[in-house]
């Protein structure tokens, strides 16, 4: 077991790659009652074209299947795994993103028992035609719920506008029509391919004896057999650098309009330290331009174009990347125009060293605040690891970012042809 020390943060991380390929990370946190564990596979909604394990040809699976599989793993022959967790005093959950499916529990007692339940239920699929059919009703209601959610519609509408063919544009849950095509066999195909331990990461944070915990995990894994690991072949259609459409307007039963502006990453191939540096730099740039301490934010607020829902965020993965900015507004067109002109008129030479230092301080403090949360640590660490980055490099990397870095990123990232807008307006 490898021990990685973060002296300044007073944290120690323990790591081991098991014989079956599973990556295990343990982060002891004394003083906490809660243990939080995530068991994550590098498999999300975008992985819809791949070569099934042991086969030679690519297959295309129905939209929403990764998410459907997440739901179905909880059901076993003996019943519902949620029940097992709650009998052991734990609460369990799961989520599917574009690139990951995570299963998790948190508990303040019976930690080993809960951990065993987590590893065992994820590694023992049980799908029948009958239970698959039943789930279609539940997920159908989940999809319908999101159709009424204006924030979700604006968020996804923006992504749809950005991408021509990349599957990131497909709603994570799919559609009622696409999930109707899911069968128990297609679920098994996805499961066999993507739930191999060598494609997964287990992260546990909480009060613990790390050697005992690691041994417990190894013993559990040693009891199970897996096929030889193979490299997973995924396929994505060629995605142009241009945006799919410049503007989309959705009419909904709302009182207040929403406006989101997106910026599409033109060359989303970065991984590892390069991606870490890039995403931190883009985030600093957005903070400088649109953070609450910026003149632009105050002006937009004073002019009544934004309110406290205004937010911005950058997402960067292997194969796609984008920034989005926006929120509720009474004048969506005006807000879109102002945001875009702030971006285009931005002169990187106007930034002063002290502004950059201020934003860096803000980011370092926010990162410390986030480290109070076991959920943040486990979820983000996993995302970082799947992109060959290290969560604990955030602070040192932030400290290294220079004005020159900002200028380079601003020049590369802010381009009018990469802009798109999605609005939700009252019917």
């Amino acid at each position, binding site marked *: 077991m490898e021990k990685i020390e973060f002296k300044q943060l007073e944290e120690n991380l323990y790591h081991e790659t098991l014989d079956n390929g599973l990556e295990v990370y343990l982060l002891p946190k004394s003083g906490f009652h809660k243990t939080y564990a995530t068991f994550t596979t590098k498999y999300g909604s975008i992985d819809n074209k791949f070569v099934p394990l042991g086969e030679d040809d690519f297959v295309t699976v129905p939209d929403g299947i990764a998410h459907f599989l997440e739901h179905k793993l909880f059901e076993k022959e003996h019943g519902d795994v949620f029940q097992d967790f709650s*009998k052991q005093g734990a609460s369990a959950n799961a989520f599917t993103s574009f690139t990951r499916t995570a299963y998790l529990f948190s508990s303040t007692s019976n930690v080993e028992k809960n951990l065993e339940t987590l590893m065992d239920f994820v590694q023992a699929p049980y799908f029948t035609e009958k239970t698959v059919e039943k789930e279609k009703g539940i997920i159908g209601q989940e999809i319908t719920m999101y159709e009424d959610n204006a924030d979700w519609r604006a968020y996804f509408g923006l992504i749809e506008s950005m991408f021509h063919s990349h599957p990131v544009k497909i709603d994570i849950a799919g559609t009622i029509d696409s999930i109707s095509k899911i069968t128990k066999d297609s679920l098994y195909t996805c499961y066999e391919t993507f739930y191999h331990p060598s494609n997964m990461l287990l992260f546990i944070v909480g009060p613990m004896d790390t050697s005992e915990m690691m041994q417990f995990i190894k013993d559990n894994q040693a009891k199970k057999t897996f096929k030889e690991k193979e490299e997973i072949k995924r396929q994505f259609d060629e995605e142009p650098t241009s945006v799919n459409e410049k503007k989309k307007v959705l009419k909904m039963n709302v009182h207040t309009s929403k406006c989101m502006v997106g910026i599409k990453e033109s060359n989303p191939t970065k991984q590892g330290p390069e991606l870490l540096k890039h995403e931190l730099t883009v985030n600093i740039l957005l903070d400088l331009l649109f953070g*609450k*301490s910026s003149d632009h934010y*105050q002006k937009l607020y004073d002019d009544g174009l934004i309110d406290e829902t205004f937010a911005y965020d950058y997402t960067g993965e292997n194969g796609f990347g984008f920034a989005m900015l926006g929120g509720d507004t009474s004048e969506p067109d005006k807000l879109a125009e102002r945001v875009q002109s702030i971006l285009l008129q931005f002169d990187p030479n106007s930034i002063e060293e002290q502004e950059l230092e201020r934003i860096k301080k803000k980011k370092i403090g926010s990162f410390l605040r986030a480290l109070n*949360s*076991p959920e943040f640590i486990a979820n983000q660490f996993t995302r970082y690891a799947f992109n060959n980055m290290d969560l604990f490099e955030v602070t040192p990397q932030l400290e290294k970012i220079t004005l020159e870095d900002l200028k380079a990123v601003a020049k590369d990232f802010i381009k009018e042809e990469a802009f798109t807008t999605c609005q939700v307006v009252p019917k």
Partner: protein
Amino acid sequence: MKLVDERTYTLNGINVHTIPTNKFKTNTIVLKVKAPLSEEDVTVRAILPYVLQNATESHPQPSQFRAYLDELYGASLAVDLSKKGEDHIISIRLEIANEKFLKDSTPLLEKGIELLSEVLLKPVTEGNGFKTATVEKEKRALKQRIQSVYDDKMRYASQRLIEEMCAEEPYRLSANGEKDKVEAITAESLYSYYQNMLKTNDIHLYLVGDIKEEEVDEYVKKYFVLPDQENKVTSSIQQPNKDMTEPNEVIERQDIKQGKLNIGYRTNVTFKDDLYYALQVFNGIFGGFSHSKLFINVREKESLAYYAASRVESHKGLLLVMSGIDFSNYEKAVTIINQQIEAMKQGEYTNGEISQTKAVIKNQILETIDTARGLIEVLYNNEVSEVDKPIEAFLEGVENVTKEEIQEVAKMIELDTTYFLTGKEA
């Protein structure tokens, strides 16, 4: 072992609570300002913290003020309004990095306490009021905030149920105030409300983190100097629940895709009652968790919904059910939900379900106190209810709940209002 080491004292009219712990990387300071919920004041009170968080005397421009927060390593300042029973509570929170995790050793805690005191006590003024421009800007934001509930159908349905159910009680009021009362607020009227609030409201200050108590006491004494207290308002008298008549059914139509079914019951039990623990266990078996009757019967067995859950309004004694269903399944869902209440009244739950529920509740409480904010909320419940239930007593109370007590609570529960937000007729 004591779970929480809370020390309380009163200084300059403020109730100070210090909770030292070294498990966080930040220090959290929270102000809680409480007064009875009233039709007259709800809106003016709802705008006040948003005006206060704009700027202070020493950082009079909002962008300067925000830049100063950045300089303090991204100290986060947030305000919000909430209801606890028939009380209306302003919360102002500041969370600031502990400098021992930074290369820089700026004493951040003192600066944080100083800044929070300025937010409360040294706002920017103009003539006899706050700055008019700030108040006007925040009036616009408040209207938008109140209106935004309409756009979030889950929140909207929850709020509409409460409005219908508590039509004759102050609890019907939303903590964010009423839209048609915003315009009348002026910089002067708001300022005079603010001055009165400082003199009369119940104010608590919580400090959680790796803090030295003597040091904190000194800072609090130095910075939190309140005007003399007069005519302090006491906790609002709990309004008696209205006399139950026939249950009410409200159906509202909108252009939406999914129906929102919200059902409100009177439990006749609140946080200060002995049966409160039994109510929590009742709710856990009924609809609080994924092993509960609602989840199993509405979602898992019938596939009617993605979510079907219940929660307790602890200080008002309400049990609230929420679910998202197809329009056509209204009757069926209502029938199943009411059958689950009936099953609870009949004592149809096993000792296994009871102990499972107790374990999950205990887990939930211990998890809540793993966050500074959750810990403060748990401790503050005691202040609002004027009871003294340490967390240990709470855990023990839950553990000791018997099957008979759960049934006793079940029998006290009365259906009040069924609210359904459904689609437009074709």
